[in-house]
């Protein structure tokens, strides 16, 4: 089985707050981070709401020289990582540490701005650092440089499952002895004209709000931000007396081999069952699932059917925090892992807000609208991506 892996640091930047603590507090309070989008050409969009981080001043965090290399998604990753590393106190410098980050769009803001310059404004040259700024792996590279990490570092891109796949890889690497300490999670900044215009075309976005599991749900709402964690081998964390936030107990990934956009129950079932098996957990030991819960017609009913199939007549409480922070695409699993840590450490199950009407196809305890108190010993976090790529993480309480 290899070594046990624990989480010793967490950091986040979301529309709910500029730290992991602020984001979890907002989740516990059932506060929404979804608001009117504000960026150039938003008036040409049909979809004008999202979990955008308003009032964020990049110049307050980074120098002009740094900003020439940091796309918005990289900035979010750096801020989240800084918080996680400070909290953890882990030794990151050296070849026994690595970085695995998930992102779907990578430096999409940089692409959006520079395509605008050459196509719309007719400019014939762009800034010399466009490529190092836009590459999907840029955030992983900057985290390795900033923290002196010289072991394995890379990025993972599997649409909406990117950060769960990334965190699963980081977990595997420590378990296998390839690394002692990993920075992992995800970052996404897709809220720009080009990013939303592309999504609009699929006709799966809501103009009004994100209402997972509610009978009146009418689509997903996007968010932006990052969450980054310090994963560490248990014996190393214990030896230095670190505060252990949770144990990463298991991970599983499956593919539907079915459809490029529609979810599939069987693939989701195998992913959840696989995570339980990998963690050595019985279904009855899971006290909370952070659902993928996108608020689309297709996902939510399929996911509930899959949960019932794995957990039988006594499924655990589930919730979709996307109702509050939106769907952060490649970073969503990372942000949602905060809800699992909060459930394990603080006994608070984050709610699914905007739950207006029960849906017979989603008749589980979806923690409607208001947080619930519980004492889960273990949790699952689901991510089921477009293209049928599924990744599920199991956490166990460190207490």
């Amino acid at each position, binding site marked *: 089985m290899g070594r046990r892996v624990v989480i010793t640091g967490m950091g986040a930047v979301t529309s709910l707050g500029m730290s992991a603590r602020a984001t979890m507090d907002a989740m516990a309070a059932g506060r929404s981070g979804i608001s009117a989008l504000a960026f150039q050409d938003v008036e040409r969009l049909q979809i004008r709401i999202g979990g955008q981080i308003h009032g964020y001043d990049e110049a307050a965090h980074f120098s002009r020289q740094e900003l020439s290399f940091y796309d918005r998604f990289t900035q979010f990753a750096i801020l989240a990582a800084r918080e996680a590393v400070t909290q953890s106190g882990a030794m990151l410098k050296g070849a026994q540490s690595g970085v695995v980050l998930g992102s779907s769009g990578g430096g999409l803001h940089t692409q959006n701005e520079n395509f605008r310059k050459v196509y719309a404004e007719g400019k014939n040259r762009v800034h010399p650092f466009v490529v190092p700024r836009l590459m999907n792996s840029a955030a992983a590279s900057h985290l390795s440089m900033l923290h002196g990490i010289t072991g394995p570092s890379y990025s993972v891109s599997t649409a909406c499952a990117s950060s769960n796949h990334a965190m699963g890889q980081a977990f595997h690497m420590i378990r296998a002895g390839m690394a002692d300490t990993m920075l992992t999670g995800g970052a996404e900044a897709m809220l720009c004209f080009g990013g939303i215009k592309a999504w609009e075309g699929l*006709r*799966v976005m809501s103009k009004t709000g994100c209402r997972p599991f509610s009978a009146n*749900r*009418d689509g997903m709402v996007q968010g932006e931000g990052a969450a980054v964690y310090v994963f560490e081998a248990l014996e190393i964390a214990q030896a230095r007396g670190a505060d252990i936030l949770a144990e990463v107990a298991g991970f599983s990934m499956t593919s539907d081999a079915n459809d490029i*956009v529609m979810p599939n129950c069987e693939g989701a079932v195998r992913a959840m069952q696989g995570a339980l098996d990998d963690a050595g957990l019985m279904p009855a030991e899971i006290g909370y699932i952070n659902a993928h819960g996108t608020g*689309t*017609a297709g996902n939510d009913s399929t996911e509930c059917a899959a949960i019932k199939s794995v957990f039988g007549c006594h499924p655990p409480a589930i919730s979709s925090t996307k109702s509050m922070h939106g769907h952060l695409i490649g970073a969503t699993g990372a942000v949602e892992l905060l809800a699992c840590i909060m459930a394990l450490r603080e006994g608070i199950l984050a709610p699914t807000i905007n739950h207006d009407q029960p849906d017979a196809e989603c008749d589980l305890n979806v923690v409607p609208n208001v947080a619930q108190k519980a004492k889960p010993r273990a949790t699952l976090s689901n991510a089921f991506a477009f293209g049928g790529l599924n990744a599920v993480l199991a956490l166990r309480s460190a207490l």
Partner: protein
Amino acid sequence: MTDIVAEKVIKIIAEQAMIEPRDVALEDSLEKLGVDSLGLVETVFAIEESFDIHVPFNANEPGNKTFDISSVASIIEAVEALIAEAT
């Protein structure tokens, strides 16, 4: 005018179904013609581009109340209404 709209809509649907326009009947549903959910989204896009209109279609809406896609005839009718609204 109406006939031209119907002809164009049928041509778009036929292209998605990969059949000849003459094999599309007004009472046919898209499902019967073999147009799946992605084909439907592409159909809506092609309609918007051909007629320069915005089709208020959301794949998540139960029954698609705002844009009736139950048959070829209902789609033509809905497109005609949207054109009339736009002019």
